[in-house]
């Protein structure tokens, strides 16, 4: 295919990606060094309240935003502030103070570090669980009678396809104060249980939700991979006296290795932007993630202001994190490509 034809085929897609992905990235990068604020002015306001004989009047200085005469909107100024937004997000002074005094737990009181800690633990802990559970379901389905497989795949797809916010809500409602599983657990243990009052139980439920939600995806892919296992290799392994576990370990898992890498890569990307769980479990007070932090900065506060510059700074930091996480897998792809026959 000639370059020109190739270009015209790809152009619309490329245009969308440049306009709505690459350009916003540059914009975020610039915004993170700027701060836009309404122009404030101080004016004297005299307020009078009726009193006996004379009115009681007080004058005070008030700070109010300047209103543009022409448009009726508040005037804003944009100033370059260098790394200040990053400083506001990272709060390094508090971090150093905590390290200096040896109180490492204090670091996790700061929103950004709290979010980073949770995001990374979440990503790395659920990864082996998803691969393991997915593989186990695939092996079990492969073992089951043919007529059962269709319905089992249908049921398995439900957690995968459900809207993430709704999925986490459905689990939230099971464990909420008077939810059915909480009351059952309370009856068994004889204790008062509040799953959403402390962060570790919430985190536990989040891990559970994520594995429940993603394991079907891993299962379907592994199941497809299992259909192509070389039967000759498997039989020779049996003749050589390999036990069931050894066959799994030395024949099946190596055969599935490319798929495991693929799932790990996708899972890394998706888990790093963990967000819906925070909304569904309403855990803002206890557990937050990096993406939620940016979302929170972008949501207007009570006065209707959005902390765009701080959001941009936290967005840039989030992006640096995912780039670091992906460098290794991407280098591998690049090496494969160079080694390939292209």
């Amino acid at each position, binding site marked *: 295919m000639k370059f020109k034809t190739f270009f015209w085929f790809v152009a619309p897609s490329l245009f969308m990606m440049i306009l709505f992905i690459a350009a916003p*990235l540059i914009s975020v990068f610039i915004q993170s060094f700027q701060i836009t604020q309404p122009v404030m002015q101080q004016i004297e306001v005299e307020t009078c309240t009726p009193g006996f004989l004379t009115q009681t009047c007080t004058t005070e200085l008030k700070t109010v935003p300047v209103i543009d005469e022409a448009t009726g909107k508040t005037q804003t100024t944009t100033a370059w502030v260098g790394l200040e937004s990053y400083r506001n997000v990272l709060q390094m002074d508090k971090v150093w103070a905590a390290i200096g005094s040896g109180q490492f737990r204090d670091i996790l009181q700061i929103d950004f570090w709290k979010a980073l800690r949770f995001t990374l633990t979440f990503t790395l802990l659920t990864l082996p669980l998803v691969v393991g559970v997915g593989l186990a379901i695939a092996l079990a389905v492969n073992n089951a009678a043919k007529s059962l497989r269709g319905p*089992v795949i249908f049921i398995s797809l439900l957690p995968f396809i459900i*809207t993430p916010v709704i999925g986490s809500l459905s689990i939230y409602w099971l464990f909420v104060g008077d939810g059915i599983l909480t009351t059952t657990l309370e009856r068994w243990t004889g204790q008062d249980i509040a799953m959403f009052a402390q962060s570790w139980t919430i985190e536990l439920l989040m891990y559970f939700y994520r594995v429940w939600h993603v394991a079907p995806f891993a299962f379907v892919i592994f199941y497809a991979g299992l259909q192509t296992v070389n039967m000759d290799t498997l039989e020779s392994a049996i003749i050589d006296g390999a036990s069931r576990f050894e066959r799994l370990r030395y024949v099946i898992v190596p055969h599935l290795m490319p798929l495991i890498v693929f799932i790990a890569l996708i899972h890394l990307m998706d888990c790093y932007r963990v967000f819906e769980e925070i909304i569904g479990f309403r855990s803002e007070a206890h557990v937050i993630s990096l993406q939620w932090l940016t979302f929170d900065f972008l949501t207007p506060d009570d006065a209707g202001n959005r902390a765009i510059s701080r959001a941009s700074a936290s967005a840039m930091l989030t992006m640096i994190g995912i780039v670091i996480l*992906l460098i290794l897998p991407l280098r591998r792809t690049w090496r494969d490509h160079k080694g390939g026959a292209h």
Partner: protein
Amino acid sequence: MSSKATAQPLSLKIASGAFLAFWCVLAAFPIFWIAVMSVKSPRDAFAASAWDVITGPVTQAAGNGLSVLDIVIGLAFLVYAVRWAFTGLPKLIAHLSPPAWIVLGWLVGAAVYAVVFVLLFFGLLPIILGAVNAIAGPLGTPILGLTTEHYVAVWGENAFYENFINSMIVTAGVVTVSLTVGTLAGYGLARSGSNLAFWLLILALIFRALPHSVLVAGYLPWFINSAEILRPIFGELSPTLYGQPWAVIAVLVAINQPFTIWMLRSFFQNIPSELDEAARVDGCSHFQAFRRVIMPVMWPGVITTGLFSFLLGYNDFLVTSLLLDAQNQTMVPAIAGYFNRETTTTDQVEAVAAAVSITAPLFLLVMVFQRQIVSGLTAGAVKG
């Protein structure tokens, strides 16, 4: 010989079967449970014993109940309707619609089927059953509490249908635009072995990894002020992009592009390139070859990719909640509005009913397109 050597001991079979059963219960239980909760009165929905939640004594006492007869006839009707949808309906549609308009035929057919089903199931059936129950004696007395009041409240009083329409507009837009743009790019990438194509794919992979909040942080200031920024170009007609469904569609399409082109590319690679080369030899240009030779055979891949685009548009919370305002909010962010009001248990059960309403279309989707979803997941992994 191999069958004997690979035969499994009974214990392993039982363990594997038990694990599978456990997984199925685990996978279906939360969804099943919110469906049950949504049709009970608030006191039953949050009752302490599971049996009370299922049978719903309070709901039943309030006069909303199903008798044995209701359940048996209702289930029989449901099973028959679903089976007919998979056997009778396709034949009827194939018979009635001209071959060139088969897609349109399916859309009209599905809509008519849905309307007729709702009329029969919720309109005619209760009237008949009410009359039958009155003369059926013990079989006709209510045993299972069931009420649709929360659905009526959600869809009627809270005007959830407006959110539903917004969701449908956004989702339909995302699917159509993403597929149109994506098929062209996917085909181009599959047929070009150049280094540039490889780098584009890697770039798309990196774009796919970006958290969406990063991108939204880039859009927001521009979208809010777009009327002033665009004024020099479009004059007074320049729109404020914030709160516009079509702006959200453009954003979601772009976010979805990396995934779409990867998936469609792997589908196009499975179509032998001899096919379009033959067309080229016969004098077609690349675009003509694409339109006349590739388009007729690409539908399985397009349907699968379309399903995943549908899921992205339908399930999105972050982008729609930040870029749309309250007037044209889609369903998923709208449910967050219930959190703030959720002061009484009635509100909670209404939120549950809204959640089930959002899940129902997805449930239908899996039922109809299970095979395509599975093949799509696998195709993405073939050439990861």
